């Protein structure tokens, strides 16, 4: 018999340190597969900021740089400008990319920085224990919205990909989810395209992925998927939100 499914070469052998059922791991696998399939493991530098994925430096088989919270895209910009022929990607949480990293998220897109960003949206600050994020859903209870997020006071959740899509240097913006096998397969396609956009030097590519945080949501892994489907999917626009003609032609 032949192995038809297993660990991709884009990942190291190290077991993930994520909580049981946390879909950060699924996204890791997809990226690992893309790196392998595009044969770019040896030419890629990943950047991880702080957050649950902050220690993912060890999980990917490519070179990796750890950045300060929110700074992955600025750091990636520095790397890409120094090494324009290499592939550079960032792996960031929603807090990272849509709270403290907002300015960089906007400006890499405005500049058309030739990097790929992956935003893992789990509607909370995971690593610090489940505080409200800009992406927290209306009414959602977190440790800093103990009475439920009050959109009248703090605004409705940000749909970051939509905002980023308004910027001319963002040539590919996709919003996916990893709640079902079907969506997982779709997410992989988007991820792959986001790396191909970079290989072709077309501009900035962002893939946002809805992900679970069973620990901070206080739900079982299975219930977390359900919660995502019921609460996040209706709020966040899904699909390939933006594709320039050049990207379509890829």
């Amino acid at each position: 018999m032949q192995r038809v499914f297993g660990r991709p070469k884009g990942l190291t052998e190290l077991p993930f340190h994520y909580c049981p059922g946390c879909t950060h791991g699924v996204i890791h696998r997809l990226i690992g597969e893309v790196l392998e399939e595009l044969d770019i493991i040896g030419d890629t530098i990943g950047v991880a900021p702080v957050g649950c994925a902050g220690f993912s430096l060890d999980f990917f088989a490519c070179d990796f740089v750890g950045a300060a919270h929110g700074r992955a895209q600025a750091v990636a910009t520095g790397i890409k400008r120094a090494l324009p022929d290499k592939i550079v990607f960032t792996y960031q949480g929603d807090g990272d990319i849509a709270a403290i990293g907002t300015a960089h998220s906007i400006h890499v897109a405005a500049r058309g920085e030739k990097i790929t960003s992956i935003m893992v949206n789990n509607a909370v600050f995971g690593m610090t224990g489940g505080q409200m994020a800009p992406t927290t859903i209306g009414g959602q209870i977190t440790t800093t919205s103990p009475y439920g997020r009050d959109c009248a006071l703090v605004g409705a959740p940000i749909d970051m990909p939509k905002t980023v899509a308004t910027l001319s240097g963002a040539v590919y913006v996709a919003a996916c989810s990893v709640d079902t096998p079907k969506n997982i397969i779709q997410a992989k396609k988007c991820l792959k395209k986001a790396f191909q956009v970079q290989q072709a030097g077309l501009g900035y590519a962002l893939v946002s992925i809805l992900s679970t945080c069973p620990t901070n949501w206080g739900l079982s892994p299975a219930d977390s998927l359900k919660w995502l489907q019921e609460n996040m999917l209706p709020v966040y626009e899904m699909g390939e939100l933006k594709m320039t003609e050049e990207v379509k032609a890829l």
Partner: protein
Amino acid sequence: MSKELMKGNEAIGEAAIRAGCKLFFGYPITPSTEIVEYLSKHLPKAGGTVLQGEDEVASINMCYGAATTGARVMTASSSPGFSLKQEGMSYLAAAELPVVVVNVNRTGPGLGGLGPSQADYFQCTKGGGHGGYRQIVLAPSKGQELYDFTMEAFDLADKYRTPVVILSDGFLGQMMEPVELKKRPKADLPAKDWVVGGCKGRAKRKVASYSLTNEIGEVNNLHWEAKFAEMKDSLQRWEAFHAEDAEYLIVGYGTCGRIAKSAVLKARRQGIKVGLIRPITLWPFPEEAFANLDGVKGILTVELNFGQMVEDVKLAVECRTPVYFHNRLGGMLPSENEILRKLGQVFDLAVEV
């Protein structure tokens, strides 16, 4: 070799290019702006890249990224902008990344004004970012030194894998002086076998600054502590100006240091044995300059702040001779006469100004 007349800020820019700086990330702020402007014009011609960050935080983190690849990289700012870079400075120190950072000190606190100041001394030498790291701080006092020290800063950064700060001020940055555009001899530097750039053909590498446990944190900190101690031992530098037989020493760096030289000469002309210690490395502070204080009756430290370096002078002097303080604030400069007058006053000397 012929000299070029250039602004201090331009001298920094030119030196960076000639030192092989390939990337500059910065955000304009008076009075440092000529650096990014000069480089915008000239670095691309030398095959380098200038990118204006969306702010100072972006800029310092772009430097962080570029430095992980082994490229020579620089940024420049001025006091409020330098404050915004402090988290980044701490990360650079922790990840041990060679980056040259220019702070053209203007007067603060807050928005303050554009005049020269030395009020960021502590910020550069002790405080600044979190975590108690140390970084090399060079204090030029004229155009030629702005040029020379900038060149050298790149070598020092690579040698010790550390950020290096050039602490200038608005006065030095704007002043035009002739500068000899020397070539720096190739330094003998350690191989950059830690840089990222794609792991093809080698094991994967990572550059980061976290400590998963307190035990690891302690190991990491002991490593840094040892490195800082080594730098402290081997890097102290200063200029001694008529100091050998001095009965009174002035201590001042940068703009104050050069003004003090005129005061020294004027005092000498009056037969008063005054000398100057001009620290060149602010960190490590040149304690060794004060090893021998035989015959020194007193010290006057001159600064453009509320009194910062004077603490390092006192610590170095270890009570072997009294240390006094003179300052100007808010963008104002002392004149040589003013320094002389103060000298006369604290040491009870008859000086003519």
